[in-house]
């Protein structure tokens, strides 16, 4: 017992669950996709070719530039052509055309533009970029800001809102749901009524109303925290209900009775004895609840009630595509939608896989 054995216990529940998870191909792929997405969010400043707030007035609504690797029939290092703006003499609509006389090679690990901060280090090193002219892989918006850079930096907001929101909801949900299920009586009634109230107002209208409580004069970082608070305020109710049901069942188990008999404090019993027993169940519920937060944030930001400039989030970026004219003339503005879709889908598959892996009943 005293010596640590490096051998894995092949019959431990965790190991068996891990094996079941690995057999679920969509789940494993989704876990990989999520890992990549979060790494992208972490290194967004480095991966983005431009500063997300830098405006390029001479490249407004510029379409995505194609990367070429052949020039005059020969394979060369990747380059792009600069786009020149032309105006239709009759309609005055601007259109961009490739200037094939000016190839601009893409350079890697290039230092340019305003410095960004990475864990406190100020640097202006970017993975790729061009030393003259512009390279906008996904085009620009109405102020000539690089859409790819804004998407990458926006992923920091969109991907963290869900995680932080679920974490806060869970903290409240476990505590109140645990208290509600453990004590019963009038505390239970009060908490149950509260969750019922929160659950019986349709989600989007109350989210919209709550987000208008955030003052317009707040800086965007406060607004970000405010949006998380709004999402958690609505989100904890469903989780508390789930936890309560589980605690009601766990309350009668012998070791809980034993803990009570030796005089352990009630809160200690809830958090130390009952909750760990529900861990796998809670992790699965949290994962499956996450996409709702991502979609909620994107919907609020899309409506102009969520994250505000100069911060970026995927929903806020899609707001630019809201009017029909912009949508038909500048379809590349829809690109952030791909990331919402991919991240929500990945969380759905990942959550399903976790549920299947954690489900003990699936053994027999």
């Amino acid at each position: 017992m005293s010596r640590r054995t490096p051998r894995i216990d092949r019959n431990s529940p965790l190991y068996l669950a891990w094996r079941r998870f690995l057999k679920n191909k969509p789940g494993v792929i989704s876990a990989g996709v999520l890992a990549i997405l979060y790494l992208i969010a972490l290194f967004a400043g480095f991966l983005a070719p431009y500063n997300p707030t830098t405006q390029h007035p001479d490249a407004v609504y510029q379409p995505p530039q194609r990367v070429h690797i052949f020039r005059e029939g020969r394979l060369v290092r990747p380059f792009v052509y600069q786009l020149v703006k032309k105006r239709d003499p009759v309609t005055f609509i601007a259109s961009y055309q490739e200037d094939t006389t000016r190839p601009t090679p893409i350079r890697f690990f290039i230092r340019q533009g305003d410095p960004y901060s990475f864990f406190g280090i100020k640097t202006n090193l970017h993975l790729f970029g061009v030393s003259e002219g512009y390279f906008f892989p996904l085009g620009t918006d109405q102020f000539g800001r690089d859409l790819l850079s804004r998407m990458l930096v926006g992923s920091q907001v969109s991907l963290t809102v869900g995680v932080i929101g679920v974490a806060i909801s869970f903290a409240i949900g476990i505590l109140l749901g645990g208290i509600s299920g453990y004590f019963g009586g009038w505390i239970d009634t009060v908490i149950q009524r509260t969750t019922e109230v929160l659950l019986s107002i349709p989600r989007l209208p109350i989210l919209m109303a709550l987000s208008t409580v955030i003052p317009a004069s707040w800086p965007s970082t406060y607004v970000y925290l405010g949006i998380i608070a709004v999402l958690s305020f609505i989100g904890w109710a469903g989780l508390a209900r789930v936890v309560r049901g589980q605690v009601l069942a766990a309350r009668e188990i012998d070791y809980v009775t034993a803990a009570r008999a030796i005089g352990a404090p009630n809160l200690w019993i809830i958090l130390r004895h009952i909750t760990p027993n529900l861990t796998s169940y809670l992790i699965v519920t949290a994962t499956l609840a996450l996409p709702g937060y991502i979609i909620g944030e994107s919907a609020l930001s899309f409506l102009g009630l969520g994250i505000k400039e100069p911060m970026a989030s995927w929903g806020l970026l899609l707001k630019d595509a809201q009017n029909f004219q912009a949508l038909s003339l500048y379809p590349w503005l829809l690109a952030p939608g791909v990331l919402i879709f991919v991240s929500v889908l990945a969380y759905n598959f990942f959550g399903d896989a976790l549920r299947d892996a954690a489900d003990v009943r699936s053994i027999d």
Partner: protein
Amino acid sequence: MWSFVFRRFLVAIPTLLLISVLIFGVIQLQPGGFLENMLDDPRVSRETVETIRKQYGLDQPVWVQYLNWLKRFAQGDFGYSFLNNRPVAGLIWERLGWTVFLAVLTILTTWVVAIPLGIYTALRRHGLGATVVNLIGYFGLATPDFLVALLLIFAVLSSGGTNVGGLFSPQYIDAPWSWEKFKDMLAHLWIPLIVIGLDGTASIMRQMRANMLDVLTQDYIRTARSKGLAERVVLWKHAVRNAINPLISIAGLSLPNLISSTIIASIVLNLPTIGPFLYQSLLDKDQYVVMALLMLSAILLMIGNLLADLALAWADPRIRYE
């Protein structure tokens, strides 16, 4: 059964009271307000605003305001829209028709499409058709409604169509009903139907598929087959009939989603429903409108859940509310 309905109503009253407190509280927490914003207009003097404030009792303590609002709301007087200079009830009433029309039509379409698809994908589990349908289902569940709307608008616009936004082409909006107007409406209607109904269809379809797969392995299905019943009878009378019951309670649970979807779809597609009205009122802090709409949506949700419970009792003879 009536005693069950009655009891549900009694239970709903305290919940509704708490909801009204929450809604009123949220609106009170909003910084500024419509009357404060009026002061930005140099033609409006502080005295005018104070007079209006007094007229609507907004100068009284918060709890008096709350009680007044609640009393009037219970009597069917939803208050006054400062933005439109009209009572709220009339404004809501004008938009209610299209809202209910869209919601009911979406529910019907959702079920008519989702149930057969659920049965189909359960029976042909590994077929090409089922795989395609399942992929569309995953797409529907993972895409926010507003994104579906944007994609559809883009698809229509880029294929040369113009029937996006609103429910009618401009020339038909005020025209009397005619066959042409009806056709024009149908040409517009499919986009909101898909936008609002896609995620609901996907989830009901998946649920139906799971239920069917569950039911098909039951003993009574084997018994039915072994006593020589036609496969058609086994499928529709034994399997489908039982697989559909759990879905009825899902119908009640899917109502909040439906309301949320209708709101956001209407804002993006510019439909003449409650959605854009709520949105605009929120932005302008037109407080009575917002409170009335939030209360009504909560009441609607409760009625929907009650109806779902009753429908379940009607469809499933094992459930009795005594």
